[in-house]
């Protein structure tokens, strides 16, 4: 039963990810991205990480993708043709990457060195409390670094938007 769900979600994620770059209408691209986010959330649910699933939808589908759509609609691009002649190059690179991954997988299987994936990641990792405690104790430093990077990005956005900030100060 678990495998059926996994393969369904994985197949849809793979298909819609390809569609995001392959479709010519940017709005359709954004929509297939939306479907992909939902199925990634579904994958989290099958892993008993309900909190991550909900956050995935709130943050990516609810906020970030709406902003993308907003920009796409403001620019009112009906269809984007500029990048579609890159298909041969992209296909070549994709095939190379795929072969690499497949080779690695085969190698690791023959060597039987694949690390045993624990079926039950952290006991009750789906719990909001567990995630919170792990974030603020074990992973405190990476967490703070990530928030610092976000702060820098925010300041950068403000500087870009307010180009005349310095002129006002000088007056």
């Amino acid at each position, binding site marked *: 039963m678990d495998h059926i769900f996994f393969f369904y979600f994985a197949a849809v994620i793979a298909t819609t990810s390809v569609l995001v770059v392959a479709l010519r209408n940017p709005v359709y691209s954004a929509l297939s991205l939306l479907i992909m986010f939902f199925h990634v959330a579904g994958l989290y649910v099958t892993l008993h990480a309900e*909190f991550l699933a909900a956050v995935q939808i709130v943050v990516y589908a609810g906020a970030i993708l709406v902003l993308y759509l907003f920009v796409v609609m403001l620019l009112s691009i009906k269809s984007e043709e500029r990048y579609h002649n890159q298909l041969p190059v992209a296909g070549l690179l994709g095939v190379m990457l795929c072969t690499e991954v497949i080779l690695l997988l085969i190698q690791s299987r023959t060597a039987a060195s694949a690390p045993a994936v624990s079926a039950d990641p952290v006991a009750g990792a789906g719990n909001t409390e567990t995630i919170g405690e792990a974030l603020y104790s074990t992973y405190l430093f990476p967490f703070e670094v990530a928030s610092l990077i976000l702060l820098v990005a925010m300041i950068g956005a403000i500087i870009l938007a307010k180009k005349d900030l310095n002129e006002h100060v000088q007056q």
Partner: protein
Amino acid sequence: MEIGLRLAVSLAQIAAVMGVVMLTVMVLTLAERKVLGWMQDRMGPMEVGPYGVLQPIADGLKLFFKEDIIPAGANKFLFTLAPILALVPALIGFAVIPFGPTMTIELFGMQVKPFVISDINIGILYILAFASIGAYGIILGGWSSNSKYSLLGGLRSAAQVISYELNVGLAIVGVILLSGSLSLVKITEAQAGGFWNWFIIAMPFPQIFAFVVYVISSVAETNRVPFDLPEAESELVAGFFTEYSGMRFAFFFIAEYANMILVSCVAAALFLGGWNAPYPGTILEYIGLERIAWMENVVWFAAKVYFFLFLFFWLRATLPRLRYDQLMRFGWKVMLPIALGNIVLTAIAAYFFPR
């Protein structure tokens, strides 16, 4: 067999809740016009049935038989998809709302919780997630109509929903800090035992500011007056659903009212104690009718929800529409700092005085 039976019970529960929600939407369409009429010193609809009480049925029939028009140049696929994308998220959120006391009854040898379809441990996040999906229906409806009024309405709505969704999320954090759970059932249970335990005035830190931020932001999220810029009649004809007619229009209409009911339910459950009566226990329990004590709880929940719905109508009759820059400034420069400050103070209070 076991799974089939469970599925049947769940479907029956879902059908019952959807029925109640749809009925409430019908009541609301009439109630809104009656309340507005009363506040503006006129009668409201009076023609259909005694005192116009059959007006919603007449409206429904009218919408059902109207011609379904897809404008030339519209994106047919998205134009059809948008009303569905607006309606489904509005209805799906009711799955985690506890309408009555937490109890389990035996049905065909299974444990069934009669007053909540699904008590998942991230209930409130689930509602937030699907509320944010509702914006897609509005944005895509506006974009696919191939009309400048619709597009402007959709764009306004996108910006507005993102800005105010943030405030809704942050306002809720205070309540989560106090209750220590994301499940609406547990949050409601934490407020049992009298109105002084409701989170709006509960010690150690009353969530009155969060409550005000939540109510204002949820009015903005449902695109109601005074935040109805996505459908501002005087500027945009009807905003994002200008080009819609018939049942597709009805879908947007029902979605707006279902969203109103949903945010009212959440407000009642988070801040006003949900199905808890303002006094400890229930009167029916005291006089020895434990078996039907749940009725009193359900009535209290309905009363709180209808109070919020009345508030929506009241605001509509009272306040003029905000200008767009005022809306944005108010959301980011007034509401957001209040919500953030509330989180900091609640966290400090909850740390020093754990419940």
